């Protein structure tokens, strides 16, 4: 965690009061719009209603977990993240390694791979619908290759369509992070390994992966967070009420916003926050164990 906070030793604290004046506008806004209401919803999550204020401990959480729509949303969100995140990490690493090798037009390729980032999802969902329609281009391609066409959006394959959209959108960002990290590996180390007869694969597992581990952690966290944002793409593709496989936690929450069920909203947000903190802490601990020997 210390690395994340950056260098502390650059400047010493001098004028405390003046320092807080600089921070005040931002801290005030963050407190009012995020932190204070978050504490209040934590309170809401353990009472029966804001009017009565009876302490009910975990009842709201239990009724949330008992709710079948929530369970469906949680299951879908989990299964989507489990598919999308590893692919987003591995594929972007492979692309970064590919662009590290000596091939022509490298900087053009980088631009191409990064370009989906700038394209608003809303702008390409039309094409996505054309590609993955039952009579669409992807199925035509499958049939040319001798496979049967698939009703993409209305079958259990609909998550795959969204995984592809997710990868299309996010690989470029991850690739840049890996490229930067790869270029920081000491050249001498790789050259020594080469002299001693190490092949590309050995070099990767013996040297590169260790230097990459902080970046791997970061890319994993960013991809995970982005995978929770997939609602955006799904909403643009299918609207408010998607097919079962694409009903995510954000859909569930939008529905309770409509009913203004504060207890349930609060419980969902708090539960999600706890899960996020656990996941992120686990990743940090894993990285700390694994990458210890290369961090200065």
């Amino acid at each position, binding site marked *: 965690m210390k*690395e994340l*906070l*950056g260098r502390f030793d*650059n*400047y010493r*604290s*001098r*004028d*405390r009061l003046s*320092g*807080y004046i*600089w*921070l005040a506008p*931002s801290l005030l*806004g*963050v407190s*009012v719009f*995020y932190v204070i*209401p978050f504490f209040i919803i934590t309170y809401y999550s353990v009472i029966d209603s804001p009017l009565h204020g009876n302490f009910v401990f975990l009842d709201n959480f239990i009724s949330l977990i008992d709710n079948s729509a929530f369970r469906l949303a949680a299951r879908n969100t989990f299964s989507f993240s489990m598919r999308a995140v590893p692919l987003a990490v591995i594929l972007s690493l492979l692309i970064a390694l*590919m662009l590290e*090798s000596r*091939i022509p*037009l490298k900087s053009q*390729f980088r631009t*191409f791979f*990064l*370009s989906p980032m*700038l*394209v*608003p999802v*809303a*702008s*390409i*969902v*039309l*094409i*996505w619908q*054309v590609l993955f*329609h039952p009579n*669409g281009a992807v199925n*035509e391609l499958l049939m040319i290759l001798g496979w049967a066409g698939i009703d993409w959006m209305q079958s259990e394959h609909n998550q795959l369509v969204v995984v592809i959209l997710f990868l*299309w959108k996010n690989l470029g960002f991850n690739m840049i*992070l890996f490229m930067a*990290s790869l270029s920081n590996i000491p050249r001498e180390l790789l050259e020594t390994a080469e002299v001693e007869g190490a092949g590309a694969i050995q070099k990767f597992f013996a040297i590169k992966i260790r230097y990459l581990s902080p*970046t791997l952690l970061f890319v994993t*966290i960013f991809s995970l*967070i982005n995978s929770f944002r997939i*609602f*955006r793409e799904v909403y*643009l593709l*299918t*609207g408010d009420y998607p097919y079962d496989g694409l009903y995510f936690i954000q859909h569930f929450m*939008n529905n309770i*916003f409509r009913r203004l069920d504060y207890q349930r909203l609060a419980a*969902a*947000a708090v539960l*999600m926050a706890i899960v*996020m*903190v656990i996941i992120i802490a686990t990743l940090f601990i894993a990285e700390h164990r694994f990458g210890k020997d290369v*961090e200065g």
Partner: protein
Amino acid sequence: MRRRYFGRTTLFVLALLFSVIFLLPTVLTITNSFMTQSEIFANYGMIFDALRPGVGTYVSDSVTLKLIPDRVTIDQYLTVLFRSPLYLSMIWNSIILVVPIVTLQVGFAAFAAYSFTRFQSKFKNAVFFMYIVLMLMPHQVTIVPNFLVADWLGILGTRWAVIFPGVFAPFSVFLLTKFMRRIPSALIEAAKVDGANEWQIFTRVCLPQCRSALYSIAILVFFDYWNMVELPIVLLDDPEAQPLPVFLSTINANEAGIAFAIAVIYMIPPLLLFLHGEEALVEGITHSGSVKG
């Protein structure tokens, strides 16, 4: 030697293949926007019908993906830009939300980052840590607090309900602090020796040093909010006030041709930013992920 050459050729072909996949959706959107309305109906009419049953009119039951239009027309663009004010007003909805968010988020972040860089203390570090945790929280968590505050302040349903949480989202603060901490302390010491006060150090040393950082952060924030869906659909009631992405998702068969043209117009601002600031953008991404200092 030969094997290495072969390997490089394979990689190059692979890279070409990937490029086609990465570019195709964008290129198709652009080329399709120059199709005539009737050609779009003939090719894709059915999709819009199936998506929102009963809304569109039945057109055709085959879907043909076309790279090159049979007849090129700019008619759709003329409709969007001149004939029908509705579409431009949707784009304006996006602008009026995104521009204040980007400028104010980066602006407040500059002050906060300066504070985190120049005046460090145990408490400040704890606050900075809180910003990081907050930055890592998905919308599902933060939207509930955003909603409650908007309700209390009586701004729920108005643009302010979207703008305020956007302005105070902690991403810019995090990234800019990381950039500012790279400014050599000698530079600041020198300014101090010359008799500069804090404001002068901030405006004459810190900000000029961070110019490319500010630019790249602004681009990243812009890309994110230009795409926003989650906040507006919960926090704005008025369908007329929704930003363009939300509106585009409700478009039906009758407007299919126009949808492509709007999609392309909507791509232009981020495209220009990207072409102009690709290097800054790459630098920004690099720093957002570099775990050390």
